[in-house]
């Protein structure tokens, strides 16, 4: 397999799967579902090969592919993977098969369109994480919106149209500004004829300061909306709540990481000086988000809204780690992106399991579920503990490194953010008690039955990852260490 364009195969395998699914007779729903699952599993297989062959200890971009695309405008088809994109690519390909599998019970109509949308979404996401040309990146970045718009708007809950509109308008207005900034970057990159959209080239010659700050702001706004950073987060609870279970899972687990990935891939290396200057601002917003998201979570009556608001809190930690601008903080931030994908994706699956049975998302409609579904209760406990960052689970390693890095940057950051450590226990245990404990009080009690075999299959890989990363985070941390170190050096060198 040496010499194969592994990254291109990786990016376009899901779309190829979508093409196959599209020609299957739409009445053969099972066949379509299996096709989608098989395509996403094959994609995961490719990532595992890359993960295994990935060279540890070098910050260089690996498995690079470059092809001329629009030479007149300096646009190239340029893919590559390094320690920063590798964990996110792995996360994407792990989550996708699970999301597809969860759709088998939560999505009953237009199965073909749904499967195709999900696979197209996967290609767009992988392309976003692997592009090293700014135009190519932008194309994939915006391409993500389209399938996601349909997933929310067609298969969502009662207020799906409002939510889908809000989602696409909010995020698209952010990307519009980013596009302007990309073009300015291009125009600044050299004399006519030698201009480029290439990330590697742009990274070597950052633009001068006043302009750098403006470009930073444009990129930062687009990413901050995606994360979402407080107070730009209000599209998120609506989108999460209205999306069908697999949509919420992918949205939380992967789509939000596009923003935080953008911090690491573009903001810090392309605008190092502005990053340093504006770090306190972003950290402040992040910390407000940590506490605010947690407090608002606690007051929710709708489980999906609760989990959605908890994402604001968790992504606050990720942002805090990123703009602590220390190796520990950034390593924690990157790891926590993966961890949040696993734990919050898992939480949405947990809510999905309940919703499939009772068709309610309201805490008031539940009680004593643990007595009816003991195995499910155990699974939900583990997912909850991961989200709470209990030591032994994946969440702890990330949160600990973030707090360590933040403390090194400025103790006050860590001291205030530690409040989030307490609050996450408050709202998660609150939800857990309301749903699982107390006397049995559920609608349609007869339908609240123990996890099926298929549902158990959904959770087993997540639980394995929770403990694997919790106990042996070295496999991920060692692969990203060199890239993160180089990134921090780059930011520190720009003075």
């Amino acid at each position, binding site marked *: 397999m040496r010499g194969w364009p592994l990254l291109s195969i990786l990016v376009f395998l899901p779309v190829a799967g979508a093409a196959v699914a599209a020609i299957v007779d739409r009445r053969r729903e099972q066949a379509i579902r299996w096709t989608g699952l098989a395509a996403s599993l094959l994609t995961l297989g490719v990532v595992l090969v890359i993960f295994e062959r990935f060279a540890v200890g070098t910050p260089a971009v690996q498995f690079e592919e470059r092809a001329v695309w629009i030479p007149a405008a300096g646009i190239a088809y340029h893919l590559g993977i390094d320690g920063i994109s590798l964990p996110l690519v792995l996360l994407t390909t792990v989550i996708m098969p699970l999301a597809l599998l969860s759709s088998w019970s939560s999505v009953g109509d237009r199965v073909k369109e749904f499967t195709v949308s999900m696979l197209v979404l996967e290609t767009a996401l992988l392309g976003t994480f692997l592009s090293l040309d700014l135009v190519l990146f932008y194309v994939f970045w915006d391409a993500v919106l389209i399938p996601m718009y349909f997933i929310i708007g067609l298969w969502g809950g009662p207020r799906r149209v409002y939510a889908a509109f809000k989602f696409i308008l909010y995020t698209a207005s952010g990307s519009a500004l980013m596009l302007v900034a990309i073009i300015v970057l291009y125009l600044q990159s050299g004399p006519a004829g030698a201009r480029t959209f290439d990330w590697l080239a742009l990274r070597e010659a950052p633009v001068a300061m006043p302009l750098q700050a403006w470009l930073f702001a444009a990129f930062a706004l687009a990413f901050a909306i995606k994360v979402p950073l407080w107070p730009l987060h*209000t599209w998120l609870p609506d989108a999460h709540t209205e999306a069908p279970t697999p949509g919420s899972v992918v949205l939380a687990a992967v789509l939000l990481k596009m923003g935080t990935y953008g911090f690491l891939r573009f903001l810090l290396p392309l605008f190092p000086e502005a990053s340093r200057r504006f770090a306190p601002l972003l950290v402040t917003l992040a910390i407000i988000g940590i506490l605010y998201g947690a*407090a608002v979570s606690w007051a929710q009556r709708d489980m999906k809204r609760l989990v959605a608001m908890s994402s604001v809190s968790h992504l606050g930690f990720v942002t805090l780690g990123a703009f602590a601008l220390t190796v*520990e903080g950034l390593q924690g931030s990157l790891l926590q992106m993966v961890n949040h994908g696993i734990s919050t994706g898992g939480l949405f699956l947990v809510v999905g399991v309940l919703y499939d049975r009772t068709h309610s998302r309201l805490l008031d409609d539940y009680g004593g579920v643990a007595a009816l579904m003991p195995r499910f209760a155990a699974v939900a406990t583990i997912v909850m503990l991961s989200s709470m960052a209990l030591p*032994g689970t994946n969440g702890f390693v990330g949160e600990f490194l973030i707090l360590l890095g933040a403390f090194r940057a400025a103790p006050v950051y860590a001291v205030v953010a530690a409040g989030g450590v307490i609050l996450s226990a408050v709202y998660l245990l609150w939800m857990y008690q309301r749903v699982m404990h107390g006397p049995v009080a559920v609608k349609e009690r007869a339908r609240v039955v123990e996890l099926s075999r298929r549902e158990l299959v959904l959770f087993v890989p997540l639980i394995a990852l929770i403990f694997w990363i919790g106990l042996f985070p*070295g496999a991920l941390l060692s692969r990203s260490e060199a890239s993160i170190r180089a990134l921090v050096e780059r930011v520190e060198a720009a003075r």
Partner: protein
Amino acid sequence: MLLILILALPLAGWLLNGLIGGRLTRRAVGLIGAGSVGLAFAAALLAAQQPAVADGWRVVLWDWIAAGSFSVRLGLLLDRLSAVMVLIVTGVGFLIHVYSAGYMREDPGYSRYFAYLNLFIASMLLLVLGDTLLALFVGWELVGLCSYLLIGFWFDRERAASAGRKAFVVNRIGDAAFLLGMILLALEAGTLELAPLARTAATIAPATVTVITLLLFAGATGKSAQLPLYTWLPDAMEGPTPVSALIHAATMVTAGVYMIARLHPLFARAEMTQTVVAVVGATTAFFAATIALVQWDLKRVLAYSTISQLGYMFLAMGLLAMPAGMFHLTTHAFFKALLFLAAGSVMHAMGGVIDLRRLGGLAGPLRWTMWGFLIGALALAGVPPFAGFFSKDLILEQAFERTQGSALLLVWGLGLLTAFVTAVYITRAAIMTFAPPAAHTGHAQRGHPHEAPSLMLWPMGALAVLSAAGGLLGSQVAGRPLLHSLEQFFTLEAHAAVAPATWLVLLTPAVGLLGIAAGYLLYRGRRQVALGWLGTFFERQWYLEPLYDRVIVGGSRWVGRMLADVVELRVIDGAVNGIGAAVGRAGRSVRAVQTGYVRNYAAAILAGTVLLLGYWLLLR
């Protein structure tokens, strides 16, 4: 290997019972649960005799976290200090597992119970055996998790579920402080390994050491239920009684004391922290004892008693009388576990009744239980020759010696006062439970209370022996084996070992006996004495309880709702939708221009041309 085995055995028990326990017979579940801890105890006994223990026997497991300049390995460390704890945890733990096999016999969640209990033992062993502060913290949080799971074991009861949640959240408050202290230590010392701490501690600035130790101690106030984070422990009594004995008396709650002992090189360099620890300990000891005086729930009496006794231990740690503190930790593990198991036996016999007003007259039917309770009570009250006498006496002696001539002598006074109150409340509890009901009340227990099965009696017997004779571990008669070993471990500046004055030695037991006499006079014939306004004051937990419930819990609840309902929906989302609506309105108003008539557009073009031309011609 032996070290890993100690930890691996209960872990295996957890996995077995947790994954397939539902398909096993009760006998098998109980055998796995108790057997794994029993074997761990045997392994611990073997390991503790290895010569390597004297200098610290280390086993490195694997590299855990490495990022930037921070890296930490997972490993185990058995030295003189952790050996004491491992033996207590596995030894007392084994007895309580055996007891549980009888106590929980009828419970439908039998295998889940043993799975949790085994996980607890494994977590507690990680806490005491971890060779880095981070590993200790992992165990520290995991025992908290097990405590949550076991307090809320009967989760269909709302009260139990809420109590478990409260325990977790209150502990998390302390844990957040602990986490910050640990991070500061990691940044300052460059390592979280415990073995070289004595060396690295000297390199940190004294002010920083004070901050680190205060943060770590804040964590200890959560885990060990000291002021101000004690509130979860009384509620934790909602859990099964053997759990209260194991976790909330003998082992987990002592983790804070152990942590200070473990980090003594740090605490020895932070004088301000020492004062804080001693004062908090002494105050908590007295505070909790007064509350224990007015509780009607037997288990709550014991819970406040535990908080109070932990206060003694912190008093000792704060004065750097660390061997004495660890000695009291040991004897307390024996007699408090015994008291709880006896209380469990009472509940078992009375069909769950635990209200002192509804007990009484159990001396006959529960003869063995009563003797167990009385031995535990005498040990708690500090009556010689029972175990508690030796350790409590030692703490108060050393407190007097070390604070003599300073304002800190007050903590000694508080300790002595607490000894008196302790004797009073435990006498009251004993009378209320076992004395025959007064004739005029005509109140007799319903049903036919029966003595516990032998599976429950044997562990109580063993603990009774330990509570009666455990003082030998620190008494001159037997050569003070425990104290001798610990004194070699703690490398603190040597206090001249002068024999304490005779009056000082006699003071503690005298106060204890006085308390018992006072308790007898007050409560004889099961009289219900209310203590007037003072009683109300104690009952409301010195008015800390309403402060917590209304101001802190209610206040934060209100803030959460305000943010969610007003700030989130009206302000932030209102602004977003407002912008959207404004754009929409602007679009609608401009739409009027788009009429679709060519003549209108032609007119507009003409007007524009005229304006432009006018500009060019006239103004340029």
